[in-house]
């Protein structure tokens, strides 16, 4: 990895997870600069803390929960929930791959527009492949709440998903 390392272990850890953490943070923050900032802070926690992970699954789960909590805190701190950017330079930058079709773009926009409290559930269920009970344990929410949130998210995504896969 072409970076200046703290040590080989951390470098390998960063190599394994940087893109994952960035994607998760971007899905919350919807801005490249903020996503990078949050992702960095997650790794700083790892570097300055004394964390020990059982395996890569454990690493991912920790990163997922920590990153989503950090992003939600940041969004709350900035009072940016459902608020459009005030500054044109700071406008949300959503990368739009040229080769992607409109349907995928619709799904992506719908996913990124989900409220933060649903986004972590959607990420863990759809992207990480956790079952709802596992998500409930990781997020410290009742399993029924997680299922309801997944159902709510699905309703919000319904139109975009229907267009993508009629």
């Amino acid at each position, binding site marked *: 990895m072409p970076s200046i390392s703290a040590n080989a*272990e951390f470098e390998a*850890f960063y190599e394994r997870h940087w893109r994952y953490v960035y994607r998760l943070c971007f899905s919350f923050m919807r801005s490249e*600069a903020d996503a990078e900032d949050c992702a*960095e802070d997650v790794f700083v926690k790892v570097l300055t803390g*004394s964390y020990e*992970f059982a395996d890569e699954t454990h690493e991912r789960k*920790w990163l997922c929960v920590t990153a989503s909590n950090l992003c939600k805190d940041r969004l709350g701190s900035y009072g940016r929930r459902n608020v459009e950017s005030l500054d044109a330079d700071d406008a949300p930058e959503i990368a739009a791959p040229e080769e992607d079709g409109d349907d995928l773009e619709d799904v992506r926009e719908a996913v990124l527009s989900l409220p933060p409290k649903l986004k972590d559930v959607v990420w863990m269920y759809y992207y990480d492949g956790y079952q709802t009970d596992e998500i409930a344990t990781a997020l*410290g929410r009742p399993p029924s709440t997680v299922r309801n949130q997944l159902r709510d998210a*699905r309703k919000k995504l319904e139109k975009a998903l229907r267009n993508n896969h009629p």
Partner: protein
Amino acid sequence: MNDNTNEKFHTGIETEITSAEKDAVQEAFDAIEPAEGAKARMYANILHKASAESERAQVTTSTQEPEKSLSSPISIASSDAPVTRRRSTKAPLLRVTRWALPMAACLVLLIFGIIKMSGHKPVDIIDTQGGDPTNSAIAAGAQQPAPITGYGSSDALKKATGLYVQAPEGTEEVLYCSVGTDIAEVSFTVNGKQYTLRASKRADDFSGLFGEEINHTVADKENGAVLTALRDEGITYNKIEWKVGDTNYVLMNTDGAGLNGIMNVYKMVK
């Protein structure tokens, strides 16, 4: 809701979701691509932030334990701002800092006091912020990053590591730190590009720069300095390595300063 109903509900939502739906959402997340150079930029910022955080912790400790302050690394006045990235407007944060920073400082002091008295590891504090309920699992061979410790000057760093590195005069964003116990590092900015100079008595490659080697030339015959260009994900990185006495030095740039840029800085630090 009893267990039976709960199970039906569970089965309901999880079986309603088709694999095509899952794939579509997964693709949507996968389509999020970091900007060019984000990987190296983020890494450099992580090291900056970690170093600054370590420094803050040391300042707090030395405030709490004045009798140790003479032998402890001291605080620095130099800027430790992360490099070369656009920052978003965060004015509300500034307002909060008026009362939040003093409160946070008090909290940190209190927590350090508690840790010292109870002998707990700092992991307990950060765990409450991280929020992983499964984090108690500990395995043999687990990840343990080397500590980065920030220092206020090259002299303080030398006192701690026995190694001397110095940022050239007139450079900006100067930050001194040790990586583990045997690497001294100073990072600084010249003409908007960030450079890192490391010194160590280690014989192996302690630069931490990896990638496909695309060029390897003698940069300075007099010093035996060798310039190596590495490439990863389409981005080129440069490092110059040389030795003085029994100390090995490496100067690195990861944000596109180019050969002239790193050579000019090498002439300033060699």
